[in-house]
Structures are given as structure tokens and as C-alpha cells.
């Protein structure tokens, strides 16, 4: 043990470089897997913001897809009564709530400031909970506001900044497509889900938007919240039963609506990001392997350099196992120290954002990388060590 240590301290630069090779390998495994994991967590978080228990119902009427043509004139639009039916606790025990949505478009102005909200919804107060939207300033609108058709609005952070800069928007009046809306609340920042800015948002009572902008004929969608993620499939079945009854649908092929399940979105994105993580892991594993070859290389050089010493040791009675273990210990120390430094680098490196992704360390990857680096030390060190151990003493002694 002591002799193995001495062997390492004899050539410090070489030892350092070899250790660095392993350290880089281990650190890259940890960091890259953390990046993959972080990106998957990030996608998951942005989907969480949309509400994981929600199912969105869209109409296929009006030329969306093949079913629209197949269903022909018999198809019905989504209506408020559909939303009411879906809210029934008797027919739909696994549905927490449903919110009808009418989607408007247009430009909102305050004085000379204008903005075009990415999302302009008329809906019920239940939408806020179903879509996981919370208020950071002001209040939500109420069922009473919906009944009365009051022209009030809750806006997102981007909309607020566009219209009011840093001023408080609460209590101010904006005009959207010429219609005045009093701002009563501002939502918490949602961020982007990768497709659109979740904070470029105007939400008003359904009746107000229908009366002044979109008309009463049809809804754009209905958002349904299941009681929990577990009963989402049950909720889905209940939606189909109720909607089929509401729209008098006889066969699945004739449905004039479709549902979009957040859970399936989540599953897709998770599988995408796990492929990403595996790819990053493979790249990192290759660098770990290269580090291992570095150990073999350095150990071979060490064995040749110390051939004479090996000869002396064997001449004075060192058994094969003693020489073997000396070099194996040396290689293992190299990889152990390298692995340790790598883990340290990994932890430090994971504190920084990499290509916009905050890495999240996977504890198993740390253990794996460290374990593999030690095994690599043993594996790649064993060849040079066995070469050293099987040197014949007279030849080794003659070596200059």
C-alpha cells in the first residue's frame, strides 16, 4: 500500500494528468445526465403549469380533420350546455369541474400602448383552477361576473407589461377590439411552454366575451379537470359518454369532438427527454472509457519504468500476488481519486445553467459513474499489473 502510494507521488504531473482524465469522464457523466434530467424536469414543469389533470375538448366541426367531413351536417358545436352536463356530479363523478372557453382575438390598447394577446379567453371562474392559473395581484372574476356579463378581465404578465410598463394595471381600463374591459387581476408568471408565451393572456367572463366579440353560437373548447391524475382515464370515459349523449353520437367514428389529454402529452415528452438523457450518457461514458485507457497507458509506462524495481522485489522474495496487488492498488487509487474529483466537479458544474437548462443531479448517476471509474481502474490496471507480476526476476534485474 505504502509502496503503491510512493509510486504515484514519484511522478506527480503524470499522476495528475491521468487522474484528470478519469475526473473529466466522471464529471461529464454526472453533468450530462443531470442536464438530460434537468431538461426532462423542465418540460414536465411547463406541462404541469398547464395542469396535468386536465383534458381539453375541441370541436372537430368546421373542417378539422377527416371526421369533420364524415360527420357532415349532423355535427354539433360545443355549447355551454355540454359544459354544464360535464359538471354534473352524478353523471361525472370523477370530473372536478369543467369550463367552457370561447376564444377571441384582437388587439388591446391603453392610450398609445397596444398588445395582441396570444390567448384571449372568455370562460368561467373554474377555468383558473382547471388550467392551474393563479393570481398574483388583484382578484379572480366570479360566477356573478359571468351571470352579469361584466366587462372585467384578468391579464397575464406580458400583457400587463406591454400595456402599462411597470405601472399597476389593477383598476385600469383597456380596450380590446374596441370593447372596454376593467382589469381586476394579474396572473402569476407562467413562462413559455416552448410554443407560446403563457403570460400573453387576457381572460374575461364568458358572457362578456360572447356578447361583445364572439357571439353565442359555439365554444372553441371545454377544459375538464379530473379529480386526480389517477382517475383521468375514468374521467375520459365519462366525458365520452356525456358528450356522445349530448351530441347524439351513435358510433365512435362519428364523433364531432376530440379530447386532448395532458397525461399523454407528458408521456410523449418524457420518452423524448429520456432518449436525450441516454444519448448524453453514452457520450459521457465514452469519455470515461477514454479515461480508463489513459490509466492502462500510464500503468504500462510505470511497469516498464520500474521493471528493475520489480526484479529486485521478486529477487528478495516478493510473491506474484504482492506485485500484482501493488500495481492494482496504484491503478485503483488513480481511478478512485479521479472519480472523487470528478464527482466534485460534477456537483460544482451542475450548479450552472447549461444551454438554458438547469441540471438536476441524478443520485444514481453519481454512484454509477464513481463505481464504473473504480471498476475501470481495476479492469484497465489489471493488464499492466499482471505483466509486472509475471516478469521473470533475472530478466527484470538485467533491465537497465
Amino acid at each position, binding site marked *: 500500500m505504502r509502496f503503491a502510494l510512493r509510486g504515484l507521488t514519484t511522478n506527480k504531473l503524470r499522476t495528475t494528468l491521468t487522474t484528470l482524465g478519469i475526473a473529466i469522464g466522471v464529471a461529464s457523466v454526472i453533468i450530462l445526465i443531470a442536464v438530460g434530467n434537468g431538461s426532462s424536469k423542465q418540460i414536465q414543469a411547463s406541462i404541469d403549469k398547464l395542469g396535468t389533470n386536465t383534458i381539453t375538448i375541441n370541436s372537430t366541426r368546421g373542417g378539422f380533420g377527416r371526421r369533420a367531413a364524415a360527420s357532415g351536417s349532423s355535427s354539433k358545436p360545443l355549447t355551454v350546455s355540454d359544459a354544464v352536463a360535464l359538471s354534473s356530479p352524478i353523471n361525472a363523478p370523477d370530473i372536478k369541474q369543467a369550463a367552457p372557453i370561447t376564444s377571441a382575438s384582437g388587439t388591446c390598447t391603453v392610450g398609445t400602448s397596444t398588445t395582441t394577446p396570444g390567448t384571449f379567453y372568455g370562460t368561467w371562474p373554474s377555468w383558473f383552477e382547471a388550467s392551474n392559473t393563479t393570481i398574483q395581484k388583484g382578484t379572480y372574476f366570479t360566477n356573478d361576473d359571468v351571470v352579469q356579463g361584466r366587462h372585467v378581465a384578468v391579464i397575464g404578465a406580458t400583457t400587463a407589461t406591454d400595456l402599462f410598463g411597470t405601472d399597476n394595471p389593477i383598476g385600469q381600463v383597456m380596450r380590446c377590439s374596441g370593447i372596454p374591459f376593467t382589469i381586476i387581476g394579474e396572473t402569476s408568471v407562467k413562462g413559455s411552454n416552448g410554443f407560446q408565451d403563457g403570460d400573453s393572456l387576457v381572460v374575461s367572463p364568458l358572457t362578456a366575451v360572447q356578447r361583445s366579440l364572439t357571439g353565442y353560437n359555439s365554444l372553441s373548447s371545454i377544459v375538464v379537470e379530473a379529480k386526480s391524475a389517477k382517475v383521468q382515464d375514468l374521467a375520459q370515459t365519462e366525458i365520452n359518454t356525456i358528450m356522445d349523449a349530448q351530441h347524439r353520437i351513435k358510433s365512435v367514428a362519428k364523433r364531432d369532438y376530440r379530447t386532448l389529454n395532458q397525461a399523454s402529452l407528458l408521456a410523449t415528452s418524457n420518452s423524448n427527454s429520456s432518449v436525450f438523457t441516454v444519448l448524453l450518457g453514452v457520450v459521457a461514458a465514452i469519455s470515461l472509457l477514454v479515461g480508463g485507457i489513459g490509466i492502462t497507458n500510464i500503468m504500462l509506462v510505470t511497469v516498464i519504468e520500474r521493471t528493475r524495481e520489480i526484479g529486485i*522485489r521478486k529477487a528478495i522474495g516478493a510473491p506474484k500476488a504482492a506485485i500484482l496487488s501493488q500495481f492494482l492498488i496504484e491503478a485503483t487509487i488513480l481511478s478512485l481519486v479521479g472519480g472523487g474529483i470528478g464527482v466534485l466537479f460534477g456537483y460544482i458544474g451542475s450548479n450552472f445553467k447549461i444551454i438554458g437548462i438547469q441540471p438536476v443531479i441524478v443520485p444514481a448517476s453519481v454512484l454509477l459513474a464513481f463505481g464504473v471509474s473504480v471498476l475501470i481502474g481495476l479492469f484497465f490496471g489489471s493488464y499492466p499489473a499482471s505483466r509486472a507480476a509475471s516478469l521473470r526476476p533475472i530478466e527484470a534485474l538485467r533491465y537497465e
Partner: protein
Amino acid sequence: MLAAAVDETVVDQLSLTTDVNPVIDVRGAIKRYGEGDASIFALAGVDLKIMPGEYVAIMGPSGSGKSTLMNIIGALDIMTKGEYFLDGIEINSMDESALAVVRGRKIGFIFQSFNLIARTTALANVELPMAYQGIKKDERRKRALKALEVVGLAGRVDHEPTELSGGQQQRVAVARALATRPALLLADEPTGALDSKSTADLLDLFDQINAAGRTVVVITHEDDVASRARRVVRMRDGKIISDTLNKGRAA
């Protein structure tokens, strides 16, 4: 003080001297390198018997086979044909790992180029063969310090080889060889790299060790080294050509 230390090794040696076995018993040793017509006989039939307590010099010009014989006696190499008993143990049929054990326990080597382990203190160098034998640390330290005292280096135990003169390094090597209490001290051209003063000191040390009962075999081509031995074996072309007692010293 120095004499007292040597006396203890005498007690240790008594068990060997009562043994009737020769320390070295080589019979019909043939060592051949290469195959068929191209083969060379480094040893062409050598018989040699060395009894406990003897001081033998093996002499011969280079190529005479004395180095090959030393490798075989030292269990560093095995012969092609023949028999070899070291302290009563049959060596020729042993495998490499068994040979390593025999070397560690039975033979103390002294080489021309000292062969100390670099960047390691004198004490650690002397302890090393005992460590390979599995002797406990305290015992190891005690015996190593005693051996270094015997060779007159008690004040240099913490010095590394590069901090010692050639003569001192060779004395560390002698201490390393003695500390394991071997049946045989085997020296290969021990004075080849030393000046005349160090040579004289070393040969005095050998006399002392032999006087204490230890068997000493020296391979050399220097007459003044051989003249200190009590028996001189001369070799040429892989054979022993003379085996004589040194009249002046045999008394």
C-alpha cells in the same frame, strides 16, 4: 556492541549447523539456452556441494557460466537438467511463486549494483523482504534496526539510497540480506562498483558474518576478493575446473 549483535545471529545459526544437510547440493546441473543445433550450454554438468558455515568464492572469466550458476543457486532460474537441493529442499520442480517464497526465506542477495529500492529509506529497504514474508511490523522493525547496526549504519536508517555512498548502500543491501536470517548469503560481484576502501570494509564485514556461522557464497572475478574466502571454485566453459581450499585461511 557490534559483537553482541553478531553473537545473536550465531545462536540463530546453530540450528542450521547441527543439520547434516548441505546448504547447497547441485548435482549434474545442465543449463542450455536455445534449441537443437543452435543451443548453447551455459552449464555443462556441474556438481557442487556447500556445507553450512562455509565461505566460498566462485570465480571465472565472463562466459564461464558463473552467473548462470549463481542464478540457479539463488533460485532465480531453474536448470534444464539436473537436481538442486537448497537447505534440503528440492528446488528444480518448483513453480515461480514457490521459488519466490524460497528466495525470501533461504537466500540473502547482494548484487553488484546494490539494487536498493529508490526513494525509500534504508530502514524500509531492510524491512521489505520481511514484509513479503508476513513478519509482524514490530518484529520487522526490531530485526531491521539490529541488522543495520551490525553493518554499522545505525545512524543512517532514515537515509534514502541517493543520500548514501556506494559502500554504505552495499552495507544496507547486506543488512537487508541478513535481516531475514537466510541459510545462505549470496553475493554477485559485491565489490564490483566499490572503491578499494569500501571493498576492504565490505570484505571485513563478510569475514565477520561468516565467523558468526553464516554460509557465504561470493561470485567474483577479482583475486583479492576470492583470497578472503576459505574455498575457491573456479569455472570455465560451464564446468568447474578446480575446487580448492584457501591454505592461508582454511585454518
